């Protein structure tokens, strides 16, 4: 895309001349489009002082100069004789001067009369000589002239904005006036009556209202901030784009060329970091992308530490503005999980550490949830580890499921603005305990994660703290369809493969990731990552690619198609010590992943091309795209693994 060519043509038009100026015409009292714009751009202008010879002024000047030129030869001769005389007799007598003048005149006449030829000759050279002749004078005058510096003139034009004007019309007659007065009197009487019954303050209010009805209310003053809000938001995003321009370029266009040399390994290119002051002490407990707006994601903040429980927050960030979250919600208790509803992308379900669930509506401006459960309405008694929206039920009510350490999976339905809960399943652990007074208590397992099948609506998987995975159905509330002895420690995340209908992945704090086929009791693939795995996610574009984060701050990306045993990329995402990465999510559209950690920081990383490989087409074959291909890919891999087992 970067190599696209843009053509530019050179025209004689002035590119700086505006093309669609609208000017207010006072005559017509409206704004009119100025059609023809002057295209000339004046770069330099100088006012000269040359006059054409043939113009009036030129002719006048030339006449003047020629008269002077005629006098000139005559006078030059006179001058020289005068000067000679003056030099000889320097006692400047007026008589002598007068004589000198007369003599000068006499001498003038003589050459004219006697020697015309000489005069003619004398006449010719003088005109080219000195057109303007300064009259020499007998007194020793010195002329001096000076002119103050003159500022050059500039033209400036301006037109003021037209005053806003409105039309108004009315009709007035005698009866109209009468009616108005009668109405006013009635109002005043009513006001007086109410004054007797109510205190004075009320009366004043009514008078004000009365006055307002007569004289129409002035237009409301909109808070200046709200008017600017939208523009400010756009400006903020533009500034961010400029600041992070190189990151934005990387995000869009950069493909790591060194991947070709790296064999099968890939890298993760860090892009933006998302941070917020108030969440610096909180850990990221949940990340979720919005199904509708591909650049919006929600992050839940809370604390995994049992001892240190504080408040929680939910921040919604947009990729377009990495410096500040778009929405901020805070809550008393730590947020443990959140999920966007795919039917209603503005609804967000949140599960808290204190067992409550809440629904936030992004369309409304409040920072509080629109619905919240409480002790009466059946909240959990333990932290809620995961919430997931379901499709709208038959009455078109949105509903979601939540799972918690208290062993209950609860379905919450939004019925007429209230949250109604229904216990779906109680996870019973094996064995009955003997309680006091001989009661048989059923121990409940602690659920830590669940996931619903994409196609088979009623089927879902539950992971527990004991490391077991239960396959359950919404229809059977007491019994499980199946049990997998999955891990030795709590199952942190379970996820169905987005393409293949039978495969799911699970990760746990016992350092392993396991991939299963739900019809087979033992895992297909096991990966040991040397550190507790916080979260694992399938990629949305390929059925064989998944990523995981571990508590040592590393992100691992696997592609089963390329390398079944080792990750394609293991990269340290967070640099500070004692910072554990807690969650990871793929963006459904762009090739980026976001990773959250314990310090409230979200890092976005771009997947290098090696990590995104589509299967190469054999020569002559078409490259098929689509879920079928993905399923087939995985099926092939699984069959390889299954066959030795079946043997």
């Amino acid at each position, binding site marked *: 895309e970067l190599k696209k060519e843009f053509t530019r043509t050179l025209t004689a038009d002035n590119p700086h001349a505006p093309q669609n100026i609208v000017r207010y015409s006072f005559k017509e009292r409206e704004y009119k489009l100025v059609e023809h714009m002057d295209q000339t751009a004046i770069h330099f202008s100088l006012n000269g002082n040359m006059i054409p010879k043939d113009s009036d002024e030129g002719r006048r000047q030339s006449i003047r100069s020629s008269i002077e030129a005629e006098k000139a030869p005559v006078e030059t001769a006179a001058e020289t004789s005068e000067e000679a005389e003056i030099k000889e007799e320097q006692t400047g007598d007026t008589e002598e001067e007068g004589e000198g003048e007369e003599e000068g005149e006499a001498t003038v006449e003589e050459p004219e009369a006697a020697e015309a030829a000489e005069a003619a000759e004398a006449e010719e050279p003088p005109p080219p000589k000195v057109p303007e002749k300064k009259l020499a004078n007998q007194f020793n005058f010195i002329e001096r002239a000076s002119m103050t510096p003159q500022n050059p003139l500039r033209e400036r034009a301006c037109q003021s904005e037209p005053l806003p004007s409105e*039309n108004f019309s009315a009709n007035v007659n005698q009866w109209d006036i009468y009616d108005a007065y009668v109405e006013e009197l009635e109002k005043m009487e009513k006001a007086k009556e109410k004054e007797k019954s109510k205190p004075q303050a009320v009366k004043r209010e009514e008078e004000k209202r009365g006055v307002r009805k007569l004289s129409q209310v002035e237009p409301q003053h909109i808070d200046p901030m709200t008017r600017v809000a939208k523009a400010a938001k756009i400006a903020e995003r533009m500034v961010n784009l400029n600041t992070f321009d190189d990151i934005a370029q990387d995000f869009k266009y950069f493909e790591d060329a060194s991947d070709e040399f790296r064999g099968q390994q890939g890298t993760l290119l860090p892009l933006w970091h998302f941070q917020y002051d108030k969440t610096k002490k909180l850990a990221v407990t949940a990340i979720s992308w919005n199904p509708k707006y591909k650049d919006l994601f929600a992050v839940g903040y809370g604390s995994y530490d049992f001892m240190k429980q504080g408040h929680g927050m939910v921040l919604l960030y947009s990729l377009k503005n990495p410096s500040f979250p778009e929405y901020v919600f805070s809550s008393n208790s730590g947020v443990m999980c959140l999920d966007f509803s795919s039917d209603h992308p503005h609804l967000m379900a949140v599960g808290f550490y204190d067992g409550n669930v809440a629904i936030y509506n992004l369309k409304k401006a409040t920072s509080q949830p629109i619905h919240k459960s409480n002790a009466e309405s059946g909240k959990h008694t333990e932290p809620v580890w995961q919430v997931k929206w379901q499709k709208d039920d038959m009455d078109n009510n949105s509903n979601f499921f939540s799972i918690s350490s208290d062993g209950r999976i609860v379905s919450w339905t939004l019925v007429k603005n209230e949250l109604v809960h229904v216990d779906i399943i109680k996870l019973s652990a094996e064995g009955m305990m003997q309680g006091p007074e001989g009661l048989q208590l059923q121990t409940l397992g602690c659920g830590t994660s669940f996931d619903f099948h994409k196609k088979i609506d009623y089927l879902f998987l539950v992971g527990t703290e004991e490391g077991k995975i239960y396959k359950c159905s919404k229809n059977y509330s007491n019994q499980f369809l199946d049990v997998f002895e999955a891990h030795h420690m709590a199952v942190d995340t379970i996820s169905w493969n987005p393409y293949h209908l039978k495969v799911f992945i699970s990760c746990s704090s016992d350092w392993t990731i396991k991939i299963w086929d739900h019809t087979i009791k033992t895992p297909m693939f096991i990966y040991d990552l040397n550190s507790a795995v916080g979260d694992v996610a399938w990629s949305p574009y390929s059925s064989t690619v998944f990523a995981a984060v571990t508590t040592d701050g590393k992100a691992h990306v696997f592609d089963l198609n390329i390398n079944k045993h080792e990750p394609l990329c293991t990269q340290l995402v967070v640099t500070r010590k004692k910072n554990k990465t807690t969650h990871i999510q793929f963006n459904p559209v762009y090739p980026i992943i976001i990773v959250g950690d314990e310090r409230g920081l979200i890092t976005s990383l771009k997947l290098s091309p090696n990590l995104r490989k589509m299967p190469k087409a054999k020569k002559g074959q078409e490259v098929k795209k689509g879920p079928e291909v993905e399923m087939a890919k995985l099926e092939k891999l699984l069959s390889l693994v299954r066959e030795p087992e079946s043997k």
Partner: protein
Amino acid sequence: MEETEEEKKDEADYKRLHSFPLIRHSDMPEEMRIEAMELCVTACEKHATNNESAAKMIKEMMDKKFGSSWHVVIGEGFGFEITHEVKNLLYMFFGGSLAVCVWKCS
């Protein structure tokens, strides 16, 4: 005859008793409105018989105080359609039978 005369007197009295200035429509700011209203009342009382001179007085005072090109109409029965600058219109009743319309438009 006497009764009708009395009735007429009653009516006239009735109107004059309730002849306080009644603003019908205005989009002026508060202070300007009050000032304009008082000015109109003064002018109409002063030139109770001659609408034109009352209007002249109002117009000149408004021009001095608030800027040029004010227009004033005083009468007992008329209809109008005007274009006025925003926040510069006052339309009120006074004296039981007079209507005054004051607006600015350059």
